[in-house]
């Protein structure tokens, strides 16, 4: 924690958790999709579900999907801008209890047909955690550079990825591996202190057993 956590963040109001955090969730979902979304269904839980209209949470989530930062004044008009930019969206208000009161679940389709599910929570002060990508449980805060891989669940792949990173002098801050079941696909999230170049990403993609890999910049 530093002085700019107290005198900050700079944000569009009215709420750091329900507006700024929501914008970051949307932006992170867009980054994980890897392209501009054309279709979005967003399910809201808990306090998000109850108070989203009054806090502009819907506008912030959609603004984030359009790539707007939490201090972007266009957030207020994002629902209109989304329609202009070819993003069709709908909201589902869930009565179900969630693990955390401020949870949003995105089901996205991108311009090139990519489909992905992203779930995240807004944990206060504009901070967020992405907790699920498709069926994989993850933990991504957006505070770090991150590398996400989908790979075959077999020995040696994780070691090979970390070898590539260490060769480039990239320090791993946090790491989490999840799989659907033994021998199926697995997902790895590596949060790093240093940025990951396009070249390093390509090297990772070429590792035998890696199905796909993306890099996420800090929000």
């Amino acid at each position: 924690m530093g002085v700019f956590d107290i005198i900050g963040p700079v944000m569009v109001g009215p709420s750091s958790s329900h507006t700024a955090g929501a914008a970051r969730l949307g932006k992170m979902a867009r980054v994980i999709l890897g392209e501009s979304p054309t279709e979005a269904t967003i399910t809201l839980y808990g306090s998000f579900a109850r108070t989203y209209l009054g806090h502009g949470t819907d506008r912030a989530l959609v603004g984030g999907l359009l790539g707007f930062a939490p201090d972007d004044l266009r957030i207020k008009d994002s629902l209109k801008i989304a329609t202009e930019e070819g993003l069709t969206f709908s909201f589902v208000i869930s009565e179900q209890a969630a693990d955390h009161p401020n949870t949003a679940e995105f089901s996205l389709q991108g311009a090139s047909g990519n489909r992905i599910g992203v779930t995240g929570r807004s944990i206060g002060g504009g901070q967020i955690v992405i907790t699920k990508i498709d069926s994989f449980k993850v933990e991504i805060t957006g505070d770090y550079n991150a590398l996400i891989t989908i790979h075959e669940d077999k020995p040696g792949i994780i070691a090979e990825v970390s070898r590539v990173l260490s060769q480039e002098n990239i320090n791993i801050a946090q790491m989490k591996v999840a799989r659907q079941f033994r021998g199926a696909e697995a997902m790895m999230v590596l949060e790093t202190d240093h940025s990951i170049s396009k070249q390093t990403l390509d090297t990772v993609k070429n590792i035998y057993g890696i199905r796909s890999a993306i890099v996420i910049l800090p929000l």
Partner: protein
Amino acid sequence: MLEIKYIADLVIAADNAGKKISEIVWQWECEQSGVLAESIWEKMQARLETIKISAYTGKQQQGKTFNGLVGGDAYRMAQTDQLLGGTVTRAVTYALSVSEVNADMGKIVACPTAGSCGIVPGALLATAELLKSDNDVIIKGLFTAAGIGTVIAKNASVAGAIGGCQAECGSAAAMAAGAVVEMMGGTPRQVSQAVALTLKNLLGLVCDPVAGLVEVPCVKRNGFAAAHALVGAQMALAEIESVIPADEVIEAMNQIGLALPSSLKETSEAGLAKTSTALSITARILK
């Protein structure tokens, strides 16, 4: 490396170095972030620019915010200063303005939170106008406020959901009071007295917003708390001392926050949020 855990740490570090608390906090931020001192200063300067825009726009705006609950009060407040005098009137006006901008999805600097974002700007900008001081004085004030806020966040909380409104508007008023004392030429000890006096008198304040929105009572409370901060600052400058020291007041706030039921901590399940007027507003806005 400099450790800032308590208000007393700030006072001792400043006294030992013959510096102001703002300088100690600036130096601490350099050490703990590894960022150059000038870059940190420039970043704070940029935040001040955003703060100023949000503090000055409300005076011209008479319309309601998009939920229709608040708006136009900064404008109304600016029309007369016959009772409170210029400085307090301006502090309240600016605090209302920043909070109205926040409620209307405009750009603000959370300070320490969005719900309490008008208090530090209101008190500091009004004081700077009184002193005819330049931006540098206000930026130093923001560092002092940040140091106080850091201590409160470490030992209690600045989140309404955890500590109630005392943690948001109480903390913001304490931050503002300490910063104003330093801007007025007060000593580090007087800064800590302003923190103690100001926070002490907002202890127990609950967070019971109508319809869960950052509007009622939040916007007007920002105005009240800005004036409250100036009272605390003037008491400290007059050498009035709090019987309970600042760090103990902060711990008391922490304990009170823990003891408050969750219905009074940003859940809108009690208090103002359950009045009949609030319930009809809730039904209208949240459908």
